[in-house]
């Protein structure tokens, strides 16, 4: 967020020194802001006649900005909802989605939890508190210890919407961020938590020590897939991949289209992969639409 702010100021300042520069304003998701920033930085190196101005604030803020006409592109880590669509129709805004990358959530446990895979329904029961003891899933007699994010996190909302369909167990420990969840899960032998897929591995791409990644299946009878299984994710078999959207008013044209093309290019996709996100082509999103 902070870097985002500084960077936008920097871009604004540099825009003052250039002439005939076209500005693209992008607003929205905090999950996407740093990634889009890196993409825009690389894109601006290749095209000096464009200046991209990016701010965060959350997916809802981006979509509201698009509806109010004060942003060109809205970043969103969720799809536009029916209420926003009615608003768009009333205001004559034709919302066009573009998926430029994807993100997967990983379920992690302490290595001593006797569990390797879960179906989505049981995962939901664990986090909503219907399953309170590992014994209920064939483990030892120990109370499940839940770790998640705080309610200001988009991931908190996505996970609740997609997996629980109801409230979290009130006993869930709400941590400050992904890194804190990992540290807590490492230390707690009965722990289970969710984190962004990018946090599973360290800089060299190796799985972090002291955690176990749980394989997930959409329903009983299906093969459980690890979020580290690239082929499985590409085939759309991992249930917790979510598309990262960019919305425009009407079909993208001119510099916005050029920026989209850059994001789709091998160079753009390599930036996405380097930042711990999934290139859209490898996320198998077509087979993994929301239910």
């Amino acid at each position: 967020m902070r870097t985002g702010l500084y960077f936008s100021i920097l871009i604004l300042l540099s825009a003052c020194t250039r002439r005939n520069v076209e500005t693209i304003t992008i607003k929205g998701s905090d999950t996407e802001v740093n990634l889009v920033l890196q993409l825009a930085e690389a894109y601006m190196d290749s095209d000096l006649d464009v200046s991209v101005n990016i701010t965060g604030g959350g997916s809802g803020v981006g979509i509201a900005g698009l509806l109010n006409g004060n942003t060109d592109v809205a970043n969103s880590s969720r799809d536009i909802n029916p209420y926003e669509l009615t608003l768009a129709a009333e205001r004559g805004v034709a919302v066009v989605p573009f998926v430029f990358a994807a993100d997967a959530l990983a379920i992690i446990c302490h290595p001593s939890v006797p569990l390797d895979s879960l179906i989505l329904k049981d995962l939901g029961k664990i986090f909503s508190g219907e399953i309170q003891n590992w014994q209920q899933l064939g483990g030892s007699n120990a109370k499940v210890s839940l770790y998640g994010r705080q309610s200001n996190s988009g991931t908190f909302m996505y996970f609740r919407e997609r997996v629980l369909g109801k409230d979290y167990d009130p006993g869930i420990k709400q941590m400050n961020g992904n890194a804190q969840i990992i540290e807590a899960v490492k230390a707690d032998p009965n722990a289970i938590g969710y984190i962004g897929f990018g946090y599973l591995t360290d800089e060299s791409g190796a799985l972090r020590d002291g955690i176990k990644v749980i394989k997930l299946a959409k329903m009983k009878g299906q093969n459980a897939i690890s979020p580290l299984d690239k082929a499985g994710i590409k085939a759309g078999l991992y249930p917790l991949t979510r598309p990262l959207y960019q919305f425009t008013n009407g079909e993208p044209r001119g510099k916005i289209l050029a920026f989209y093309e850059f994001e789709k290019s091998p160079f753009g996709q390599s930036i996405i992969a380097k930042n711990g996100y999934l290139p859209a082509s490898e996320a198998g999103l077509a087979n993994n639409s929301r239910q």
Partner: protein
Amino acid sequence: MKRRLFWDIFFEKALKAAAWVSVLTLAGIFLMLLINSVRAFETISFAQFFSGTAWNPAAYGEATYGIGAMLFSTFLVTLGAMLIAVPLGIGTAAFLSEIASPRVRNILKPAIEMLAAVPSVVIGFLGIVLVAPALAKLFNLPHGLNALNGAILLAVMALPTLISVMEDAIHAVPKSYKEASYALGANRWETLVRVTLPSCTSGILVAIMLGLGRALGETMTVLMATGNAAAMPHGFFDSVRTITATVAIEMGEVPFRTPHYYSLFACALILFLITLLVNVAAERIAAGYRRKGQ
């Protein structure tokens, strides 16, 4: 002559204005909290807010605004902190004032005061990486992110205030009291416990109140170290979420001018009133103490 008079009056007014700035700020904060809190009760009933125990404004279904569990959590952590800090504080203060040689005292006192300069995030960080695993091991718990962890850290943070004020109080006990005690054949321990400490009870109470205020309002440390579970705790080994942590977590992303937004002001107002009460109590005790001393 006229010029001198002008500057004299000018500075008197300027200093008076400076003193009023802090009073007006306090009044302004109180008013702002009050006005925004009142709006919360347009949609949330008093009964739900004060007697409810479930705080879940971002609920999947209907939002609930019960402050009970948070209030109890705040008291639990603060009480724990005081149970740890008060005996330690009295012991340290008595040692510093009555037993330690000037050389030891000159090293110890600044060191204790330095403790107050450690930023609360650093203490919180130590809570996560050091105290929590130690507690888990010691009490055979799955994790150490609980009320006890928060209490220990808050005790550490309240200690400098406690010790400093208590030491002053013990030091202020007239020498003649102690001399009388020694003359009657009491040893140093008996003099300390039977004479010196009882005669500065109100000073010690003031110290406890100030430490209490410090612990009640602390945010970052408890936010990091207590696990932030919204459920009603059953004891020191449960994760808790205090009022301060809730306001800090939720204020950042709450949509403005919604019941949730106003309810956070109401939480802050409750906290403000509690700390105000504690501080006023400390002030009253101190005033009584001064009168008695004269």
